[in-house]
């Protein structure tokens, strides 16, 4: 029987960032990871490091996301110095493209609302933007199609290579003595004293603290430690082109060119249960939007397409919660594992480790959902 101070259940971007943050604090941590069969958002996502437009109706989420965006440059540098892995972080700004005056007005109102909601709380509003019409936008991104009317621009947003991010977190975690356990699907969790016993196959792993970072799996793992976690899968389909010379150097909310030359086009939002597949209809929509934005992409060849499942909380915002029944059990859920990786490794890990943290994570507790805690 193996024992650890803390076992993080789930080795995607969320679990990996939290585990790294805990290990950095000298805590003895293991990650129990399901392995390659997992519904792994970390290997299918779009890799934006993005705040503008997020957090409408939940200003503390916008602010939390902004905190992460602000931490990102140092975070990327730290991972690079830990591992020599370049996570491809680029912070040169990003745009959300609008195809009509109406869309421009809606986007402006959406962003102004995020800023306004933060004011009475006296917190960082998260959003920082300007609305760009053509030709100002053309200077930033040459080659836009005739249907593009303008865009919102945020100077603090950017993108990275999320596969490298995942790899760099794993390597950093291991360098600190963390134990990564692949093919360790947790099938049961039982209280054991003030800690827990996690069942993996015929084996038991014991720990004094556990963090559930299993994405969609948190919905069935949570009740084992007294928490109902309202999270479900929301599929996104993505298309990837051949490697091309640099065509545009900042991402849009639906399109980016990677540091290795491929253009990634996203994405769909589909409630189709646990189906990770692609559909012709979905991919057609993604491709059409790409060509409408940049007509030159009509001549690009597509080499891959995939579907991946976002672990989406019911109200779309992060869940960070501590079990009332078992105070050493935590639940962590979000659908922005890339953007939030920096704040997860820093503030969230500190909170789980029992430190005082500013900004606090109280607003992200499960209490906001009108659900009964598991008896």
């Amino acid at each position, binding site marked *: 029987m193996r024992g650890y101070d803390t076992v993080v259940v789930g080795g995607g971007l969320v679990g990996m960032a939290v585990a790294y943050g805990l290990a950095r604090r000298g805590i003895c941590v293991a990650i129990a990871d399901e392995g390659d069969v997992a519904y792994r958002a970390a290997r299918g996502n779009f890799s934006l490091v993005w705040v503008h437009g997020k957090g409408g109706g939940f200003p503390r989420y916008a602010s939390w996301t902004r905190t992460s965006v602000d931490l990102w440059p140092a975070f990327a540098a730290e991972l690079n110095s830990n591992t020599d892995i370049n996570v491809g972080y680029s912070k040169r700004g990003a745009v959300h493209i609008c195809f009509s005056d109406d869309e421009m007005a809606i986007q402006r109102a959406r962003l102004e609302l995020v800023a306004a909601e933060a004011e009475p709380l006296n917190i960082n509003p998260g959003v920082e933007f300007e609305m760009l019409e053509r030709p100002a936008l053309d200077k930033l991104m040459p080659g836009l199609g005739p249907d593009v009317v303008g865009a919102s621009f945020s100077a603090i947003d950017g993108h990275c290579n999320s596969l490298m991010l995942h790899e760099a977190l794993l390597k950093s975690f291991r360098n600190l003595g963390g134990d990564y356990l692949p093919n360790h699907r947790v099938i049961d969790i039982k209280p054991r004293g003030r800690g827990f016993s996690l069942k993996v196959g015929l084996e038991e792993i014991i720990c004094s603290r556990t963090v559930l970072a299993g994405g969609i799996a948190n919905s069935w793992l949570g009740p084992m430690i007294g928490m109902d976690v309202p999270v479900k899968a929301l599929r996104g389909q993505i298309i990837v082109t*051949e*490697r091309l010379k640099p065509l545009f150097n900042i991402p849009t909310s639906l399109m980016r060119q990677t540091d*290795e030359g491929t253009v990634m086009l996203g994405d769909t939002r589909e409630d189709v249960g646990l189906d990770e597949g692609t559909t012709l209809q979905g991919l057609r929509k993604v491709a059409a939007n790409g060509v409408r934005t940049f007509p030159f992409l009509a001549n690009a060849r597509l080499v891959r397409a995939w579907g991946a499942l976002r672990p989406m909380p019911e109200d779309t915002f992060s869940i960070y919660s501590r079990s009332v029944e078992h105070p050493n059990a935590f639940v962590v859920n979000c659908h922005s594992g890339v953007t939030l990786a920096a704040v997860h490794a820093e503030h969230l890990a500190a909170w789980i480790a029992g430190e005082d943290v500013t900004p606090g994570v109280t607003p992200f507790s499960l209490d906001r959902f009108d659900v009964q805690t598991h008896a």
Partner: protein
Amino acid sequence: MFKHMHERPTVAVTIDNKTVAVPVGASVAAAILLHDIGHCRTTPVSGALRTPYCMMGVCFECLMEIDGVTNCQACLVTVEEGMSVRRQVGASGLKP
């Protein structure tokens, strides 16, 4: 260098300005190996040399410019009389 088992009629193909004879029905990748062309491209990321490898459309190592179209998988294209093949250097641009 590879040799074929049976004599077959050939077509003339230009590979980077050098005209060579290639058996009818062969792939462009086979032509590269047959004529000891060496590398067929350099990679966009590190500039490493690449040559045809899997010969069945899986590995994407044999990308070349064929009749003006970049990033073609040379192992999946059959040679034709007068075809123009070029080595690809780094990432390719888009056809305007």
